């Protein structure tokens, strides 16, 4: 098992945000976290990446508990692509991707670091942006750069917090196709939060629906994305059909 989350709980002061969350993820799998705003999706990602300290439970990456790892060791196993990156002092695309080698570089990037980074720049088709500053790029291009930086960490697991938010339709598909391709070819495990149920259905192997700090539903995309589950989770009526082998959700109305 690549990632094993076991009875993870987290609270801000007295308020319980996550209660006994358990799931697992294999290599090459994509797992999407779904749920309305404020259900703890991002908090769960941050707990798994040890940005937040979990209250109880454990997270294991290939049998090693993340609680026993140093930040440097952890960053070689799990890479994180946050929802927003506010670069106050921007640098070029090459330097941004090179930053992904920080866990491996002592105080200087080696030839191997450069080899890996330029290979990733090529894979991610970032050649023409290589020397551009990241604050001069569009949202979709920037997201590709941040995914490239995550890949430069040579992780086993990539965590993405709403990778398609604020992107246009073409960019959304492009980014998710890249993620799906990377997961399959590199045997990467991908854990992401996403709001678009149709995109989640198309690109996820498994889905978790979070509600009231707990897992409401967990399983294969086609089994989880049902009209009934969506009604309870989001309080909306939908029409759920199957198109080209994927579940397709059409929004109908709010439930008053």
């Amino acid at each position, binding site marked *: 098992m690549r990632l094993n989350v076991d009875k993870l709980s987290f609270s801000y002061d007295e308020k319980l945000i996550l209660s006994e969350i358990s799931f697992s993820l294999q290599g090459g799998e994509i797992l999407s976290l779904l749920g309305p705003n404020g259900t703890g999706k991002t908090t769960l990602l*941050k707990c798994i*990446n*040890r*940005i937040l300290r979990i209250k109880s439970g454990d997270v294991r990456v290939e049998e090693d508990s993340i609680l026993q790892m*140093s*930040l*440097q*060791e*952890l*960053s*070689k196993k*799990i*890479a*994180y692509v*946050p929802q927003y*990156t*506010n*670069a*106050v*002092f*921007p*640098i*070029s695309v*090459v*330097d*941004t991707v090179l*930053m*992904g080698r*920080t*866990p491996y*570089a002592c*105080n*200087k*990037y080696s030839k191997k670091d*450069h080899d890996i980074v*330029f*290979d990733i*720049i*090529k894979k991610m088709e970032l*050649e023409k942006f*290589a*020397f551009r*500053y990241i604050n*001069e790029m569009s949202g979709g291009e920037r997201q590709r750069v941040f995914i490239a930086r995550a890949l430069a*960490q040579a992780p086993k697991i990539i965590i993405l917090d709403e990778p398609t938010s604020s992107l246009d339709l073409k960019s959304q598909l492009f980014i998710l196709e890249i993620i799906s391709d990377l997961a399959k070819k590199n045997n990467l495990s991908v854990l992401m939060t996403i709001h678009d149920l149709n995109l989640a259905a198309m690109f996820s192997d498994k889905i978790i629906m979070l509600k009231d700090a707990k897992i409401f539903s967990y399983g294969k995309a086609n089994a989880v994305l049902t009209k009934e589950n969506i009604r309870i989770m989001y309080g909306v009526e939908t029409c759920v059909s199957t198109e080209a082998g994927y579940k397709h959700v059409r929004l109908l109305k709010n439930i008053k």
Partner: protein
Amino acid sequence: MSKTINEIRNNYDRQIIKKKLELLIALLFIIVCGVYFITIGIKEVNTVQVITAIQAWAKDDWEIGGTPATNKIIIYMRFPRVAMAFFAGVGLSIAGAVMQSVMRNYLVSPFTLGISSASAFGASICIVFGSGLFFESDLGIIACAFTTAMLCIILVFGISKRVDLGPSSIVLVGIGLNYFFCAMTATIEFFAKEHKLAEIVQWSFGSFNKASWNEVFVVGVVITLCYLILTKSYLKLNVMSTGDDELVKSLGVNPNKIRRLTGFLAVLMTASIISFSGIIGFVGLIAPHIARILFGNDHRFMLPFAGVIGAFLLMAGDAIGRVILEPVIIPVGIIVSFIGVPLFIQLILSNRKKGLW
């Protein structure tokens, strides 16, 4: 790898080599400037006399060149003054650059955290209330200014730690303490006798009038050691300056640890400089900005370039201050602001037009 990616890589390697060469040229330029600035002053000397004086000093034979008085003026007055300006410029600029990066804020310098007002408070206490051999000497002022500056930073980090040690809380606590120490200094000034008040004001202008080789040695050692330690954190500083703490952690870097270490080094450099020279604030803000605009935000190059720019600004400012209203010496802090601000605004405007910054 395809040809295109090879070309990109070669281009990147060429950029790195170009920056290294530019840095080497900048260092040579600053040495040439240093020699030139030694020649400037009330008593004009030429470059040959400077070299002769250095030879006389090295051989401990002041009669070389037949002008022992000139040799001693160059070695004991001009040279330490320029060397002090060099180290102060390097130290204040690098400290400013580091603080901006770890706080992720363009407007931060060590002085934002109350260092200048704290050391002014320390110096004021010594000047006004000092008694006895030690506390009435320059050494006493230096010791008091340094101690209060370090006390200030301990308070800043100590109080911010109670919240989260995040950039915003550190800056806010620093600003608060800045006003506190300003008020304390103003209270002392209010009750001080006129000649003591004049001495405080004179100290707060900041100048290298009292620079000696002993001071240069102390400041030089502190700046060099701090800089050497900072060079071990170049990559971590890059990570710190381009993303928030969550991203920094996910790249294997502990943001609070880096902020504490680099913040302490920046403050140590600043406190050691201003306790000898008085308050020279502006260069710590402007030199890093100029370096960022001209050479980018990669700390491997930005930090040394900021140091060179800061050194040039202070050396040039001090030289201009010595001759512009001869025989009156205008404090270097005033001159640096006059030459630095127009240059700074021009750079910002030109880069904003190009959309680069």
